[in-house]
């Protein structure tokens, strides 16, 4: 069985670099697919006219909220509305702890909501715990058949 991929939806390249570093520093070697905005994330998950959807769903989606074009909430809504991705674990990983965002995130069916700490040491710890939990400890839903 393939080790699950991580889909990191993040528009800030600094955050991408730091997140990758945090994950790697804890020996989380799963492949990380980066989508730089909502459209890329949706294209990756559901495919486009010129490219089919990814054959395997990622083990977990780390979703930023404030994204160009299509924002994180819309991506989450799309994920939950499609039969294929309905049960896909989605962790919102974002800067804001606005109550509105937290409420909306959970209402739309996010599995978890994590605020990125400014302190990089704390951030690294959070990334490690996320990886440990969602990639190793969590029992993922059975993989649906490819369309």
């Amino acid at each position, binding site marked *: 069985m393939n080790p699950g991929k991580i889909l990191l939806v993040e528009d800030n390249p*600094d*955050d991408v670099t*730091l997140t990758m*570093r945090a994950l790697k520093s804890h020996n989380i070697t799963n492949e990380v697919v980066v989508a730089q905005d909502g459209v890329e994330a949706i294209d990756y998950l559901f495919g486009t006219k010129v490219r089919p959807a990814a054959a395997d769903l990622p083990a977990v989606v780390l979703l930023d*909220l*404030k994204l160009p074009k299509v924002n994180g909430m819309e991506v989450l809504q799309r994920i939950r509305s499609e039969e294929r991705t309905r049960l896909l674990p989605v962790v919102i990983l974002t800067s*804001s702890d*606005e109550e509105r965002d937290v409420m909306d995130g959970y209402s739309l069916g996010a599995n978890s909501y994590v605020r990125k700490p*400014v302190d*990089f040491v704390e951030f690294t710890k959070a990334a490690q715990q996320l990886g440990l939990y969602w990639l190793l400890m969590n029992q993922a839903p059975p993989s649906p058949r490819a369309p």
Partner: protein
Amino acid sequence: MAIRDWPIKRKLTAILLLISGLVLVLTSAAFVTYQVVTFRNTMRDNVATRSRILAANSTAALAFANEADATELLGALKYDPHMVAAALYDRNGRILATYPPAAAADLVPPAPQPDGYRFEGGRLVGFTPVAQGGNQRLGTLYIASNTKAVSDALRLSGIIAVVVLAIAMLAAYALAAVLQGRISAPILALAETATAASTRQDYSVRAPKFGEDELGTLTDAFNQMLGRIEEQKKELQQHAKILEQRVAERTQELEHRNEALRRNTAELLAANTELDAFAYSVSHDLRAPLRSIDGFSQVLLEDFATQLGDAGRDSLHRVRAASQRMATLIDDLLKLARVTRTEMRTERVDLSAVARDIVGDIQRATPDRQVEFTIAPGLEAEGDARLLRVVLDNLLRNGWKYTGKQPQPRVAFTAVDENGSRVFVVKDNGAGFDMQYADKLFGVFQRLHSAAEFEGTGVGLATVRRIITRHGGRIWAEGVVDQGATFYFTL
């Protein structure tokens, strides 16, 4: 129509007619009675005279019992049409002659009756003695006359009386019709005026005055009353007008204010929306660069520690500390903004329980510090549970923080009743403050201690005051340097 419902005119006329009629009837009755009595007396005298003359002439006939002479004598009575019957009785009471000569037995009594003249059965009958030489009685003369003359006289008197009565009553009626007006006209005028005033609500009408009698006084009083009512009505209308005007003015004023309020609300709403967007943007965007600064500083520290040297590492540590401090500042500012933005839900809040909860959190987080917390039981207030929690959290943590250099740190949460309102008190025996700067305590970013002494952003108490203000309450503080601070607040 019952008499009491008659119009006054008719009543007055009726009273006048009744009185004058009664007087006339009584007068007429007296007149007729007098007539009849007088006439009867005259008639009796006439009959008596005639009887005496006849009696004197009859002496010879009676003395000689000459029936033929007697009959002839009596026969002369036929010239008086009123004579009904006559008879001559002799000394022994036997009838000598009668008139008419063959008189029926019921016309002539069979024997003489006591002398004298009297009315009997519609006739005047008289028995006259017939004497000679003054004292020798020879017999008795009987004469009966009908009383037709009396009844004729009576009838005439009656007719006269009735005619006079009729004429008098007519005159009385005419007079009454004219004179009753003197009394009824003012009353009618009063009634008319009163009706006009009451039905048309027209108080400008006045009853005409006819004289200085009681009705005149009544009219005056009534007119005065109308005048006063009219005056009061005018005053009332004036007042109503003023009131209306005032209402209109107030309404307009209110509308203006409403308009201003609407504008203000709209502006406020726009400002709030902007603030909301601003805060949201800050929350998302301002922290990201800080994360990069802190993150890459850490990367440098981890990957290039040896090349950096002590000075370089120190610098990077400072960069990291600064970015983290800035993150805290941003977070605190966002909290302050949130306090203003969040909708309040008012409910009964058990402040004692909230305080115990917060103290529990503090003690779990810092088990190495021993601070004696005292929380009075049963302190309750109406307010937004979450916001009040922020208030107590800030005040209790402040107490905890500023007692850091005190060997026996104490923080107490109690309440006192002042002028009937509840005042909550958070008191500590910590660093305190100089009362000179008391007004700076609650300003944003205002601090009375350096960050080196006691760390903090200067946002906490500003947040507390904003929450208290939103609850319609007040907060103030008292402090003595190195002896402690006391915060009072009402809700």
